[in-house]
């Protein structure tokens, strides 16, 4: 199961576990750093976020994510793998919508490269989110 950056619906714990097994298969990897972004049941003005609906510009996501991975691999020479998975469609509060999974020979590069990848995704990945509230209203949110 290889996900080419985008997946319809949440990134489940089963998907994470399956990627961890793949990454562990590299016996020269000494550490994996994962960031998993989750939809929060934020309360605002007396209403609560039930879910986020994500939309993406798919061809551009592929180009941008390829470039992010290339950037990170060239900055950190100890990396073994960099995985990016982002949801499209509905992801409910309490579900994961973004997984960044990085393996390296040693922990510092795994941790730093994972954090950097997350920041580049927030800044550059052409994805949009619509927060859906429990009164059926919605708000488009951005990362600024």
């Amino acid at each position: 199961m290889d996900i080419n950056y985008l997946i319809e619906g949440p990134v489940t714990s089963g998907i994470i576990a399956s990627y961890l097994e793949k990454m562990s298969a590299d016996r020269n990897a000494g550490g994996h750093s994962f960031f998993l972004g989750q939809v929060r049941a934020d309360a605002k003005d007396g209403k609560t976020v039930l879910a986020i609906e994500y939309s993406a510009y798919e061809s551009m996501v592929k180009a941008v994510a390829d470039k992010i991975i290339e950037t990170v691999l060239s900055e950190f020479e100890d990396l073994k793998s960099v995985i990016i998975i982002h949801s499209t469609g509905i992801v409910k509060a309490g579900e994961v919508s973004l997984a960044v999974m990085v393996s390296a020979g040693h922990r510092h590069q795994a941790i730093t490269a994972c954090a950097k990848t997350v920041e580049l995704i927030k800044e550059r990945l052409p994805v949009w989110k619509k927060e859906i509230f429990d009164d059926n209203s919605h708000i488009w949110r951005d990362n600024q």
Partner: protein
Amino acid sequence: MEVKVLFFGVLAEVAGTALKHYSDVNLMSDLKHRISDDFPEIVHYNFRIALNSQIIEGEQELKAGDEIAYLPPFAGG
């Protein structure tokens, strides 16, 4: 000749569509005027424009089959 214009995020809501084709348009500046005429609300929003999945600024010549995208601020993660 015809180009394809995609609207994403809140701009798809504002335009009332995610996709519109425009014919007989050779310059990005002309296309932007036609889009602003069709969807006057759009000018109140913050956005960038991509041509064939690459963000561009300024004037560009267009050719048949080009894909132009109106991109609100990103909100991944």
